[in-house]
């Protein structure tokens, strides 16, 4: 179906205000208020919000809306029914890891599961890219073909709507009652394919200087000196992991009282010194370069074994936020080409 961009926007505001479809919250990307940074952020929509639906990914990862920095696991927080619009390919791809990690046959994170179940996601194709975007370098695409409920592809002042799930179908029914939807004229599909291809070409051009093989096992074998060198400007702040759509490391805090057992989880980062310290004080990675390297190995090696998919979706956020101005793509490329000197 086709919807006018303007109509779609008024539908979203109506949803938020009148809880159409039972949604208690509608979240969209909007421009950063600081004109100097070219970033978008997720925000609960209101009358003055100017959603930026196409463009490129937000600076805050979608993951953070499903796995907040602090949530109570016991008794489990409940979440609420909500609609998130403007999710991008790199964020959607991260669900393949998060869902396997947190909702598996052994154990389920009850709060993450609640957010997943109660959220309807409308993804949107990227119309532009930012300097750090590199989804195609890791096998991704600037649009999504999985996990979405509805997907919107921009054609002029309209969106082509694709249904991805039962939830999406239900949402479309509600939309139909409020705004005019029309049937595609015929050439939209072609136009969209052209748009998508054009963005892919831009991405490939932008990232050709970072090209590398896909055999990431080379990273584990690379010379340690390379890591020591690359980590020199790292201040160990953990910004890169906090902003990453696939990082989900947490600590469990106990807030139990005399009467009730209460367990809370909070975000953690493998870049912090105390991360893996055991009682007694030993830590397996006391040096910064070891923790720095661990992040790369976790993404490209350990997660690959755990989830059959590398832990980088190429969103480039860790590049944008790095206090040490470390170019993630360069580090990967360089260390993959640095064989170990000697044991």
């Amino acid at each position, binding site marked *: 179906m086709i919807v006018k961009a303007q109509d779609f926007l008024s539908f979203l505001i109506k949803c938020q205000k009148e809880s159409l479809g039972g949604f208690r919250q509608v979240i969209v990307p909007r421009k950063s208020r600081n004109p100097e940074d070219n970033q978008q952020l997720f925000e609960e929509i209101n009358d003055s919000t100017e959603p930026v639906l196409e463009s490129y990914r937000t600076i805050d990862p979608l993951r953070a809306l499903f796995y907040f920095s602090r949530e109570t696991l016991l008794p*489990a927080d409940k979440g609420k029914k909500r609609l998130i619009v403007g999710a991008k390919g790199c964020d959607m791809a991260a669900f393949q890891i998060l869902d396997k990690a947190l909702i598996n046959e*052994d*154990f389920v994170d*009850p709060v993450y599961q609640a957010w997943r179940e109660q959220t309807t996601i409308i993804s949107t194709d990227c119309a532009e890219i930012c300097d750090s975007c590199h989804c195609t370098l890791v096998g991704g695409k600037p649009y999504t073909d999985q996990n979405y409920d509805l997907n919107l592809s921009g054609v002029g002042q309209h969106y082509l709507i694709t249904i991805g799930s039962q939830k999406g179908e239900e949402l479309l029914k509600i939309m139909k009652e409020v705004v005019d939807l029309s049937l595609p004229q015929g050439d939209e599909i072609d136009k969209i394919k052209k748009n998508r291809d054009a963005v892919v070409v831009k991405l490939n051009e932008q990232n050709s200087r970072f090209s590398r093989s896909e055999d990431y096992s080379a990273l584990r074998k690379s010379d340690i000196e390379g890591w020591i060198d690359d980590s020199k400007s790292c201040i160990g702040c953990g910004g890169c992991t906090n902003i990453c759509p696939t990082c989900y*490391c947490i600590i*469990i805090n106990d807030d139990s009282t005399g009467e009730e057992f209460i367990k809370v*989880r909070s975000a953690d980062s493998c870049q912090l010194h105390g*991360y893996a310290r055991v009682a007694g*004080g030993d830590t397996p990675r006391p040096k910064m370069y070891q923790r720095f390297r661990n992040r790369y190995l976790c993404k490209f090696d350990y997660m690959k074994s755990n989830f059959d998919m590398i832990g980088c979706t190429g969103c480039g956020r860790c590049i944008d936020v790095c206090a040490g101005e470390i170019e993630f793509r360069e580090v990967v490329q360089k260390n993959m080409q640095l064989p170990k000197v000697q044991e």
Partner: protein
Amino acid sequence: MAQTNPYKTFAAEIYEIIDESPTIRTIRVKPEKPIPFRTGQFIELTIPNIGEGPFTPSSSHHISDKMDVTIMKAGFVTEYVHKAKVGDRIGIRGPYGTCYPIDEWKGKDVLIMGGGVGMAPTRSLFLSLLQDIDNYNSITFLVGARTPNDMIYKQHIQGWRDIDKVNILRSVDRVPEGEEWNEEVCLITKLLSKINIKPEGNPVVVCGPPIMMKFGTMDLLKYGYADKDIYLSMEKKMYCGIGHCRHCVIGQYYACKDGPVFTYDKVKNEENIWE
């Protein structure tokens, strides 16, 4: 299927406290409902208002309505365990992780090495084996501690030694002035030269401080044990116990889900396993 909240915690009451050494204490608890586990698995123990941490029970897995947990004073939570009193209420969630596959050890000569507080999980194993001692050809328990005063479970040793097919050798690293000791004085790994077990096809379990696990494993390999017969209890930071927090990751494995009991052949190619 995992429909229940994996963080569900059950109350337990401390009914006895045994101070095993100046820094190691066993709390004996009665949970509000039985907590069945298999020896080698661990639990997360809550001290209300204070925190929680992973511990391996030190009692037999044939008992589930009571549990012993032996804990060394080593940090914030354990500090409070050492201040606990009989009648105090704690919390337990779990059990989590892998166990020692003792059903596969029928007819074998089982060797166990427990160093320091690492003797706690191995006592659970030892007691679980004793229950069906007829199943095994022999059980050899090598026990190490820094000094005689650090030696735990002292009051049980004689009773265990009296059991047929059981052989217990103990060593301390040194005997400070004023302490008494009439058993071995050497590193626990040196006790290997005093036993006579055929290593081929027999299991050996190692649990203790990282340095002892490392050199113990090296010595066992020299002694003739196969990689796949050496069982290691890995101590890592297991926050969640369910493979969600990633703190205990050993390369591609989670110590909490794929372990804490690993065979050496499984982890030997991963980095930093001894740290």
